C-alpha cells in the first residue's frame, strides 16, 4: 500500500510536467467550458441540464477516452510495463494508478467548473453538492474503466488516437451534452444509451438525481472494470 501511494505521488508529479496531459485534462476542457458557457449565457440557451454538469461530463469523457487509454497503451508499447514487471512491481498497479490519478484530475476540473460557473455564467449550484460530486465521480469511474477496456484492444498509440474517437465523438454528439438528446434520430439515441455520459445525463438532470441510470452506471463500471482487469492481466502476463 505504501509503495502504491509513492507510485501515485510520483505519477501525479510526473503528469504535471507533461504538457499533453495538462492539455487533455485541463486546458481543452476549461477552454471549452469558457466558450460554451459564454455562448449559452449570451443566447440564454437551456439544454435541460445544468451547464456545469454537461461541461464536466465533456471534460471527464475527454480525459477518459483521449487521455487515460493513451497512457496505458504507451506504457505497454514503450516497455514501461515490462520494466515494472521485471522490478517486481505488480502489473495491476499501473492501470489502477492511472485511473486513480485521472479521477483526481477530473475532480479538480469538476470543482473548478462547479464553483466558477455561478459567477461566470450565472449557472445555479446543485442543491446537494456532495451528491453532485458523487455522481460526477461515478460517471468518471465508469468512463475510465471503459477507456481502460479500450486500451486492452489496441496495441499502438497511433491506432488508439483514431479508435478512441469512436467513443469520444458519440459521447459528445449523442449524450445530450451539446444539445438535447431527444432531438436526435432514434438509432443515435439507442447508440447513446450505451455510453456512460448518456446515463450520467439521465442520472443528474435539473429535476434531481434518478436511481435507474445510477444503477446502470454502477453495473457498467463493474463489468468494464472486471473485463479490462482480466484482459490487462492476460496481456501483461507473457505467454
Amino acid at each position, binding site marked *: 500500500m*505504501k*509503495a502504491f501511494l*509513492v*507510485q501515485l505521488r*510520483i*505519477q501525479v*508529479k*510526473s*503528469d504535471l*510536467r*507533461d504538457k499533453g496531459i495538462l492539455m487533455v485534462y485541463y486546458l481543452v476542457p476549461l477552454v471549452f467550458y469558457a466558450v460554451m458557457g459564454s455562448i449559452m449565457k449570451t443566447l440564454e440557451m437551456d439544454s435541460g441540464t445544468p451547464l456545469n454538469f454537461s461541461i464536466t461530463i465533456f471534460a471527464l469523457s475527454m480525459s477518459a477516452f483521449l487521455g487515460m487509454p493513451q497512457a496505458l497503451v504507451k*506504457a505497454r508499447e*514503450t*516497455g*514501461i510495463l*515490462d*520494466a515494472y*514487471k*521485471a*522490478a*517486481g*512491481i505488480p502489473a495491476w498497479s499501473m492501470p489502477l494508478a492511472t485511473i486513480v490519478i485521472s479521477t483526481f484530475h477530473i475532480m479538480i476540473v469538476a470543482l473548478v467548473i462547479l464553483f466558477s460557473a455561478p459567477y461566470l455564467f450565472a449557472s445555479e449550484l446543485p442543491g446537494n453538492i456532495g451528491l453532485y460530486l458523487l455522481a460526477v465521480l461515478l460517471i468518471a469511474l465508469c468512463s475510465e474503466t471503459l477507456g481502460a477496456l479500450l486500451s486492452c484492444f489496441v496495441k499502438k498509440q497511433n491506432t488508439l488516437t483514431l479508435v478512441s474517437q469512436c467513443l469520444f465523438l458519440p459521447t459528445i454528439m449523442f449524450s445530450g451534452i451539446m444539445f438535447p438528446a431527444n432531438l436526435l434520430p432514434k438509432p443515435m439515441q439507442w447508440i447513446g444509451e450505451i455510453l456512460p455520459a448518456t446515463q450520467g445525463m439521465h442520472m443528474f438532470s435539473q429535476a434531481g438525481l434518478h436511481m435507474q441510470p445510477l444503477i446502470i452506471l454502477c453495473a457498467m463500471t463493474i463489468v468494464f472494470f472486471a473485463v479490462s482487469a482480466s484482459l490487462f492481466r492476460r496481456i501483461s502476463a*507473457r*505467454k
Partner: protein
Amino acid sequence: MIKVNNLQRSYGSKQVLKGVSFSVNQGEIFALLGANGAGKTTTIECLEGLRKWNVGEIEVEGVSVAKSPDKIRKILGIQLQSTALADNMTAKEAMQLFCAWHSVTYRGDLLERFDMGGEYLNKTYVSLSTGRKRRLHLALALCHRPRLLVLDEPTAGLDVEGRNTLHQEIRRLRDEGVTILMATHDMAEAETLSDYIAILRGGVIAREGTPMELTAASDIQSRVLVKTRNDSLREILPHGLEKLETTPEGYSVFKCKDAAELLLTLLPHIQKHGDTVTDLRVARASIEDIFLSVAGGAK
C-alpha cells in the same frame, strides 16, 4: 547459483529452445552468446520468470523459478534489452518508486555511483541520453542489492566511452560478489568481460567454456604477420613453413596452430640471413572466429 536444465520453448510451430542446459557459478560473469533470434532473450526471460517455457527446469540458488517466481525476484536484478520509464519521471523519482516497491530505503548512493547524481538527479527520463538511461536502469536493477544481475544486451546502442564505463561497472559488481548473467551478440564484449561463455546455436548450447578454453580448444589457426628490414622472408623460407601471402605493406603472413612454435622456427632463420624483425603481429583465434565456426560460417 543458476542451473538451467533442458529448457525448451516453442512459439507456435517454431521451436526456439530445444533443450538449453547450462550452469552459472557464484560470482562470475557469464555471457550467453548467440545471433539475433537465437533465443538468448527467451532464455533469460524464462530465467527472470517473465516468460513461460514448455519443458525443463530453472533453479536459482536451489529455488525453482517456475514454483517461486516472487522469491526469485528478491535475488534477481534485471536490466531488459528494451525498456523504458515514463517520459516525465526523473531519475530520483524512478529510484524512489523502485525502492518503495522493493521495500528498501531510497538508494541515492547508487545514482551517485552510476554518475546519475547531481544535475542528472532531477532530469526527466526523456531528456537523458541512451547511455544515461542504461546507467539509470542498471542502478534501478541494483536497488534491492540483488545477488544475481541479469543483463540483456547491456551496451546495445552505446558509444565506446559509454561501453567502457559500463564494462568497468559490471566488473566492479562482479568483484563485489554479484553474479552476472549477460546475453549479448557483441563478441568482443563477451571476450573481454566474461569469465565464462556459452554459445547458443540452433536452440541448444553449441559450445561453452572460459574465453581462453574456447580459443585454445579451437581448430582455428592463428595468423602471424612478420615484417623484416631486408625482406628476407620474401623468397627463402625455413623448411616446412608455408607462407599464406605477402601484404602490400610488406608483411609475410603465416597461419599456424601454435604461434610460439612458428616463431621459434622463424626468428633463427631471419637472424641467420642477417635480417632483423621490424614488426611482429599475432592474431589469435577470437571468440568471434569461434562463434562463426560454430555457426557454420568462415572467417
